[in-house]
């Protein structure tokens, strides 16, 4: 595999469906980092991920993974990728032993030892059929399978959705360990932005098929803030600074994307830190400008 700085490079990715367009999306996932991929349902996260995996063919744009073309070098790339979806893709009639038998013949670098170590760590039974697994167990099984062939890139589509906080924490710990190797990278789409705030190095946010934000998480969080103000104060804020404003009964919450400048411009204004959830909600309502 050639030398690369970004695990994933996406440029001008466009895919048109009836009623939805993934429109000219570009972003990079730096090697050795974890990128949170956020957006509401139907924003285009799964389409983007499926395009990276060449499950969906793009209309235009380029996708490079490990510096290789995702179509031309598809199978070379896929030897080093692990994909984790929101549902276990293994038949209910199979068990963990079966998965070991199947995947060790598919992945050159499959390690049964690693796989069974993960099973022990997750306290997953080896002979129990997946049909009898809980959602948490199924997700852990997927993670165990994904981590056992020395993949350099983990792509997860809503993998932690629907899991309880204990299981999610356990899984996030595994990701931290995985990222100790600088060759490893993660692209993780999720609704649960609190998880991403904990572990992501960078964040990409898309909405209605369009890329809104992509960059380092800390910078994004640093640049975004919520001005808590009265209706009169609100009128004094330059509309160019406003992402959108949530109108409450007694005050207005205004999201700004340039906190440092706003602090200078509107001295005395109370600017609270915004979290990824806030950023998502205010950006999704950016067309309305004012919303309740």
């Amino acid at each position: 595999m050639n030398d690369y700085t970004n695990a994933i490079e996406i440029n001008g990715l466009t895919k048109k469906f009836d009623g939805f367009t993934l429109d000219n999306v570009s972003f990079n996932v730096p090697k050795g980092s974890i990128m949170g991929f956020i957006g509401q349902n139907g924003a285009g996260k799964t389409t983007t991920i499926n395009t990276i995996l060449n499950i969906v063919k793009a209309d235009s744009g380029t996708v490079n993974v490990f510096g290789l073309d995702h179509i031309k070098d598809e199978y070379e790339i896929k030897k080093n990728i692990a994909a984790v979806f929101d549902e276990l893709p293994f038949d209910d009639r199979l068990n963990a032993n079966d998965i070991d038998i199947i995947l060790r013949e598919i992945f050159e670098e499959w390690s049964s030892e690693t796989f069974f170590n993960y099973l022990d760590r997750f306290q997953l039974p080896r002979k129990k059929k997946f049909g009898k697994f809980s959602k948490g167990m199924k997700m852990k099984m997927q993670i165990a399978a994904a981590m056992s062939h020395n993949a350099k890139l983990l792509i997860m589509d809503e993998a932690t959705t629907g899991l309880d906080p204990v299981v999610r924490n356990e899984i996030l710990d595994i990701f931290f360990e995985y990222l100790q190797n600088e060759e490893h990278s993660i692209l993780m789409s999720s609704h649960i932005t609190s998880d991403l705030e904990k572990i992501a190095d960078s964040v990409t946010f898309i909405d209605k098929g369009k890329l809104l934000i992509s960059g380092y998480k800390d910078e994004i969080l640093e640049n975004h803030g919520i001005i808590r103000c009265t209706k009169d104060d609100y009128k004094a804020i330059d509309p160019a600074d406003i992402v959108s404003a949530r109108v409450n009964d007694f005050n207005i919450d205004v999201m700004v994307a340039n906190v440092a400048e706003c602090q200078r411009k509107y001295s005395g204004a109370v600017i609270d830190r915004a979290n990824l959830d806030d950023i998502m909600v205010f950006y999704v309502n950016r067309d309305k400008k004012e919303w309740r």
Partner: protein
Amino acid sequence: MKGIIYRELILMKKALILTAVVYVLSMIFAAVVLLAFDYGNLDRSDTEAFEMIRMYSTLILVTVGVCGPSMGQLKSIIDDYNTRWMGFQYTLPLPAETLAKGKYLIRGTVFAVGLMLGILGELYIGIISGTGFRPNMLVFVLAMGIFSGLSALEVPLAMRLRNEGKIAAAGMAIGMPLLIPFFIVVMKITKEVEQRTAALVEAARAAGEEGPVDIGDPMKLMLEVAQPYIDTFRTVLMIVGVPFIVLMFFVGYKLTVKELKRRSL
């Protein structure tokens, strides 16, 4: 590819075991009934009853052997969509050709084993019934082989239609035209048997016989009339059977590759 084959076999395990159990049970039941003609209270001189049971015993064994495992594979293809395996397999470092080869290697193997079971079934029935192996029954095994070969198209059909009912309907639409010559031959045989029977009755009446006319063993008469057709049918099957089956597997494989490359989820 081994991983894909293992997976198919694991998922088909139940169907394979069930097929084996039904096959063995069918052998036992056939033996019980056929032996009853010699050692039980069934009348061996009732050739019509004996011949029918002998024929059906083979037909059941052939059908179970040939159709059972392929039905198991059909179910697992539809389940692949429900369990999201279809999407997951596209994330694996396996080209569409490898995925398709895995399916067709299994399909080909169960097909060959099915035909073997059909032939063994006839051999077994021949021994149990004391009639010996009947080459005529080989025609049925070959005909089942043709239909089973046609079912090689089931794989891409299942991937496209994803519904057992629709697949069965499409299979009927494709397979029914093949039955037309069979129905024509059956009609011809029936007509000829009727003509011969009428001629026998007429000859008996002309000779002054009254009352019911003894036309002999109806099964024997039927076979006498059908034998030239069976021989022709067997020759035709021998000539076109193998190329047809190979063609169906090839077409099915190509369509499966195409369907996998389409990557429809």
